[in-house]
């Protein structure tokens, strides 16, 4: 079946226009090409961000000055945060993998607004270039932290203006992607693909799309206000002029907490698609998982002020936000239990995508449970702004979204390149990554509990051991990343050719050729099956 004699040319060969070479990519409206362009940029910027992270770790290997000045350190962790959050993690799975997979999972030829899709990518490119530009121009790289907290961000002479404009543009790009996906899911489903037959990855993108549309405008106005304040100096956030810095924090977190779910929901969707495929078993609680995505999207929008327990809020407000925060843990837990229940008594096939997905479940659980420590106002006051927080969010964002992205790459790249990587190496890379990851971030929980504050350039000797182990861990992690990326790259260039369905999965994208042709389907998609029923589905390696 893999050698279709009359095969249509793949989307690599057929650009759908007369343009040749690079222009046939930069001006494409094909969702697969746009998805790959996002992917290359996300991965490229991920490598930049990791290098900055390694520099931070290197500086912290011993007390005192090691490799950079304090001001440089501030700029490095700010840039690390801005790049990782706004340029890497937020677009990673939705914009890159989502663009690749979503339309095919729906049995559609493309997204609802292909040209808008291209426009979003161009905005993303512009925002990224501006963010890098802010490094080298003006009064030096921004040093505010990725949160741009006032009043410091209003008065620092570094290049904050350019950086916030970059964030604004990146936000706009994210909104348009969300809008496009929502419309696509509503309007472009193949005949017969009812709402309860949509794969869970697409469901998660649907919930994500709503957060992107509803929360991101608030970020837009917030960073715009920083810009306006810096240029005009009205003083909305400046107590000297009658303003109130707490209002900034509220506006910022009204977006940025939901943004955490823009980052994590799609990764959960990836895992929900991978687990049943390798357990050869229908997913346990399909509706519960789909519904819990919407519940997370909704409840996650109500908890922003748990970032402000120590900022000076009324006790009532603290109590309410603490309670709400605990409530968001419920839908997340529903998902974890459903994944585990799916694996239970499944005929599990251990392949790299599953291994990375299991890594996700473990690391995300650690991150989620420590999140409860931060969500309880009492304990939060002890660990607020310490390395406990740094560790917590790396477990969630890097262990969660990062590993979710790696799982997605191992799962879907064979589909889009038509070739398989070396599975053994992929598993080895995972092992090294996993060890490096825990060695990097576990000690940070400990020194955080002991009181090591975050964003500090220097520290007392008592924290030395923890920092040292962590820095060594960061090198192991880096080795794992290099092995993983090289293996994937070699796979897509020289790997063994695969057929339509190398994993024997049942969602629609495995019915199209690998790589797919321009309009995805070479025959009518068969929507009669359920997305997770594997009876009669053949593995086609």
């Amino acid at each position, binding site marked *: 079946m893999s050698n279709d004699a009359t095969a*249509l*040319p793949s989307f690599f060969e*057929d*650009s*759908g*226009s*007369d343009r040749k070479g690079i222009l046939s990519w930069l001006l494409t409206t094909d969702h697969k090409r746009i998805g790959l362009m996002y992917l290359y940029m996300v991965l490229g910027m991920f490598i930049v961000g990791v290098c900055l992270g390694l520099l931070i770790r290197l500086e912290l290997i011993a007390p005192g000055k090691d490799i950079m000045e304090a001001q440089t350190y501030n700029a490095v962790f700010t840039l690390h945060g801005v790049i990782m959050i706004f340029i890497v993690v937020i677009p990673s799975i939705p914009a890159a993998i989502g663009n690749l997979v979503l339309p095919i999972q729906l049995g559609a*030829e*493309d997204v*609802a*607004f292909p040209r*808008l899709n291209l426009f979003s990518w161009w905005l993303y490119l512009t925002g990224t270039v501006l963010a890098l530009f802010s490094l080298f121009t003006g009064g030096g790289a921004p040093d505010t932290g990725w949160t741009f907290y006032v009043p410091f961000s209003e008065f620092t002479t570094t290049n904050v203006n350019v950086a916030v404009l970059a964030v604004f543009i990146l936000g706009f790009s994210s*909104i348009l992607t969300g*809008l*496009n996906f*929502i*419309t696509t899911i*509503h*309007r*472009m489903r193949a005949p017969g693909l009812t709402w309860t037959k949509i794969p869970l990855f697409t469901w998660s993108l649907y919930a994500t799309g709503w957060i992107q*549309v*509803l929360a*991101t*405008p*608030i970020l*837009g*106005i*917030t960073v*715009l*206000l920083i810009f*306006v304040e810096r240029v*005009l*100096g*009205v*003083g*909305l956030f400046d107590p000297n*002029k*009658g*303003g*109130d810095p707490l*209002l900034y924090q509220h*506006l910022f977190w009204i977006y940025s907490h939901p943004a955490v779910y823009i980052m994590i929901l799609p990764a959960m969707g990836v895992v929900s698609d991978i687990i049943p495929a390798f357990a050869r078993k229908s997913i346990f609680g399909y509706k519960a998982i789909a519904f819990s995505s919407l519940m997370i999207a909704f409840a996650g929008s109500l908890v922003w002020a748990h970032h402000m327990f120590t900022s000076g809020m009324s006790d009532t407000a603290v109590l309410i936000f603490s309670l709400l925060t605990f409530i968001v843990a419920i839908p997340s837990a529903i998902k974890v239990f459903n994944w585990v229940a799916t694996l239970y008594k499944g005929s599990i096939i251990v392949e790299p995508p599953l291994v990375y997905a299991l890594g996700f479940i473990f690391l995300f659980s650690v991150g989620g449970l420590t999140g409860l420590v931060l969500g309880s106002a009492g304990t939060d006051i002890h660990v607020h702004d310490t390395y406990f927080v740094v560790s917590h969010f790396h477990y969630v964002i890097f262990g969660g979204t990062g590993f979710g992205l790696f799982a997605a790459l191992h799962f879907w790249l064979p589909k889009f390149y038509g070739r398989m990587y070396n599975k053994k190496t992929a598993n080895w890379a995972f092992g090294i990554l996993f060890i490096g990851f825990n060695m990097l971030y576990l000690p940070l929980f400990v020194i955080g509990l002991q009181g090591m504050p975050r964003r500090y350039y220097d520290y007392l000797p008592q924290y030395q051991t923890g920092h040292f182990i962590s820095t060594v861990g960061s090198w192991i992690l880096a080795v794992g990343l290099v092995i993983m990326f090289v293996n994937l790259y070699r796979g897509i260039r020289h790997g063994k050719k695969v057929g339509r369905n190398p994993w024997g999965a049942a969602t629609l994208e495995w019915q199209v050729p690998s790589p797919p042709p*321009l*309009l995805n389907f070479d025959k009518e998609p068969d929507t009669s099956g359920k997305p997770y029923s594997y009876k009669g589905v053949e593995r086609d390696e």
Partner: protein
Amino acid sequence: MSNTHVHKDYHGAKLGMWLFLFTEVLLFGGLFVLYSVFLSKYPLEFHEAGKELDVVIGTLNTVVLLVSSYFVALAISFIQRGDKKKAVLFTWLTMAMALMFLVNKFFEWKAKFSHGIYPTSPHLADLPHGENIFFGLYYIMTGLHGIHVVIGMTVLGFMVNFLRRDIITQEDFVKLENAGLYWHIVDLVWIFLFPLFYLVL
């Protein structure tokens, strides 16, 4: 061989536009939140400062925008009936009203400036904090709205062009409809700004 497929989906286009308008409302929503918090913090100062604004110009501009909204609705209904000429005419008229709005706004702002009321002015620094915040919000919110008026005008300009080139026709007018929706939102936001700044205080 290229098997590109043109896909037109009226409902999809409308859905997308509505979602986008939602984000616009939320963008202004953040500012309305700031306004309400500061109003509850500085009720007296807001009251004092509000008296400075010119209700006559504000009212005039409200009327101008309402009429323009009516014009764009007319443009849509003319193209639906196939009357391209009138559709073009009323799109032009909508733009003319938008321009009138901006001219009024310009004179209003200019008058404020000449009274020394602008961000970081020495005069505002002498006034109580609440008045400084009031005028700050006034400039930011009406300014952002003004930018939206300019964007709206540009969009309508494209629509005139599309009408002329028969890209928008009696059969396929969703672009003009969506532009009209955008213009209604610009109008709607003003309907909220107007009482907040000019009337209730």
